[in-house]
């Protein structure tokens, strides 16, 4: 362990910048395109290209099950995957606060390189800026991603078309990421550790496109705002609505415990390695089985269906048989005493 820190000079474009790029970024991300160190990397893409970007800020930057680097790769990779594309290349932009520990930067970059390998993508271009102490919170990362869009999944490139009878599948337990971060921030702990679910989901998603081409009507990763928010976005302007079954929603009991204590609802908790999939009902069971066979989808469930009961709305059948509306999250979720 050294306690060497990022200095303003690391962002000034001189010798320090050069060292930082060579010793950390080029070394860890190692690939041909990046090591050329030109102003842009030139790559060959397919007929249809998916392109996405996302910025990552999180407190704390290291949390049970991951770190901001893992998040920055997985998030962008998953955005490409759910859009019906095979992820290929990423860019990585770093905004670092002066005084940031170089060892921590190395950990984050190594973690990004590791996840990129797992996701089959290369980080081929990047940028680093250093800002004065207090002008950013430790480190912010932006990644953009390019993927080869799969033509059989062209439905996923457009606004979703819902059909009555379609099933809604969730790929696993809700809220693990939110809880892992919460436990890192507060005095809450767990009997069995709750880890963030952050992961690139290639192994879960790509086999679906291979084995069930064109069968998936809609797919999205369930991140901030939780399942409730994604589902509301899907059916907002539709003549159809989504009906959920409370007893089918997968939630870990530790996560449910925290929800009971602070008055949170797992439907609104953030995830970083979960997707919601809408499929026609005939293939729903087969697709569910395929998802369950993947390590990231063991707890997947069919949680609801598309129908006409409440057009444009998401409704929930409670465990005792009553119904209620599930709205989008209004503002940040706060712990409450009432």
């Amino acid at each position, binding site marked *: 362990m050294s306690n060497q820190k990022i200095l303003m000079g690391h962002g000034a474009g001189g010798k320090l910048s050069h060292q930082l790029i060579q010793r950390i970024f080029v070394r860890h991300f190692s690939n041909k395109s990046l090591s050329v160190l030109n102003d842009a990397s030139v790559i060959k893409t397919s007929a249809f290209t998916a392109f996405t970007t996302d910025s990552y800020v999180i407190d704390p930057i290291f949390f049970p099950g991951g770190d901001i680097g893992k998040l920055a790769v997985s998030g962008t990779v998953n955005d490409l995957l759910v859009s019906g594309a095979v992820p290929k290349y990423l860019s990585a932009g770093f905004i670092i606060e002066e005084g940031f520990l170089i060892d921590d930067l190395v950990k984050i970059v190594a973690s990004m390189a590791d996840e990129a390998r797992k996701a089959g993508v290369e980080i081929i271009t990047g940028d680093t800026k250093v800002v004065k102490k207090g002008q950013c919170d430790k480190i912010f990362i932006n990644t953009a991603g390019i993927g080869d869009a799969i033509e059989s999944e062209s439905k996923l490139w457009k606004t979703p078309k819902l059909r009555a009878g379609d099933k809604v599948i969730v790929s696993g337990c809700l809220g693990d990421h939110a809880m892992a971060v919460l436990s890192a921030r507060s005095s809450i702990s767990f009997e069995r550790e709750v880890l963030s679910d952050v992961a690139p989901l290639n192994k879960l998603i790509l086999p679906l496109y291979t084995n069930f081409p064109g069968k998936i009507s809609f797919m999205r990763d369930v991140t901030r705002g939780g399942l409730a928010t994604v589902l509301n976005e899907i059916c907002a302007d539709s003549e159809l609505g989504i009906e959920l079954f409370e007893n089918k929603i997968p939630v870990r009991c530790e996560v449910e415990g925290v929800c009971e204590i602070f008055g949170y609802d797992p439907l609104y908790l953030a995830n970083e390695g979960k997707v919601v999939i809408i499929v026609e009902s005939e293939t729903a069971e087969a697709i569910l089985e395929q998802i369950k066979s993947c390590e990231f989808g063991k707890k997947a469930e069919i949680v609801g269906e598309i129908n006409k009961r409440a057009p444009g709305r998401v409704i929930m059948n409670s465990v005792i048989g009553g119904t209620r509306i599930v709205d989008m999250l*209004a503002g940040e979720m706060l712990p409450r005493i009432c």
Partner: protein
Amino acid sequence: MKYLEEYRDNKLASNLINEIIRISRKPVRFMEVCGGHTMAIRKFGIHKMLPPNIELLSGPGCPVCVTERSFIDKAILLSKKKEVIITTYGDLIRVPGTASSLDQEKSSGADVRIIYSTLEALKIAEENPQKKVVFPGIGFETTTPSTAVAVLNAKVRQLQNFFILSAHKIMPPAMEALIKGGADINGYIGPGHVSTIAGSRIYDKLSVDFNISVVISGFEPLDILQSLLMLVEQQEKGKPSVDIQYKRAVNYKGNLKAQKLVESVFETCNTGWRGIGNVPDSGLKLKDEFSRYNAELQFELEVKEVPEPKGCLCGNILSGKNKPQDCKLFGKICVPENPIGACMVSSEGTCAAYYRYNF
């Protein structure tokens, strides 16, 4: 989870509903005076499973909703002082005062921190001796003991920079005021955790004086259904009384240790309830010997009383005279993202619960 899941059993719930339907003849109106009950009823859809002759009303059970706007304005005024850190329960942070909210002040640079326990507020005071840490105390019998513990702890630790802005309230006087004010009900679904602390005895007089039922209920679906069954039974027999459904957590005398702690720190005072008005002896303020912790006395806190927003029916809704649907603002201008009245702010407020869970 023990003591939670077994009370959410689908089959037992339908047993209770069938039994209610079987014995219920008279048209009856019951009011819940606890936001937790409002939420549970809406969340599990209980109100839609009952026969049409049973009507449920939501009373003033949400501490945020019944807190006067002048209290929020005082907390906002304090948050603007450079030397002040506001430590508050999350419930209060989005509640609109006259011109702003604690949330808005926070985004303009005020030091407002959300806490879960008053002990965290004490810790913040200890860690920031150069600052003045203010805790706006809201809540009923259940919550006041936590504030009392904090005050007594502050005294033991000789903290000079910890202050309470008290809006603590007690429930029975308000329940009495509602009936005197004309709320037409046959019984109360009694607040569970208030009664855990205060005991079922606090409703004895109310039940006798006004010949109404009070059944103290737990918060899971089976609890509420069983309480409704007990209320219906009392009404059908024509013998209203005080009864406890939530026996696993409530007894006649309540938690005497907690009661003593509260009595040692607080004394009753007159206070205003949003929607009901001034109710004698329904508020709690710090006793004189604790005045050094009393934010009202230690800071200049002049705020103007201002009328409620135009068109807002929160007052009538809290007293059971109107339902949210009667309000012209409800669901149109007044929504959870942009609450006009207090009942929409707190997620357990009557309007928020109706908005979110009505279908």
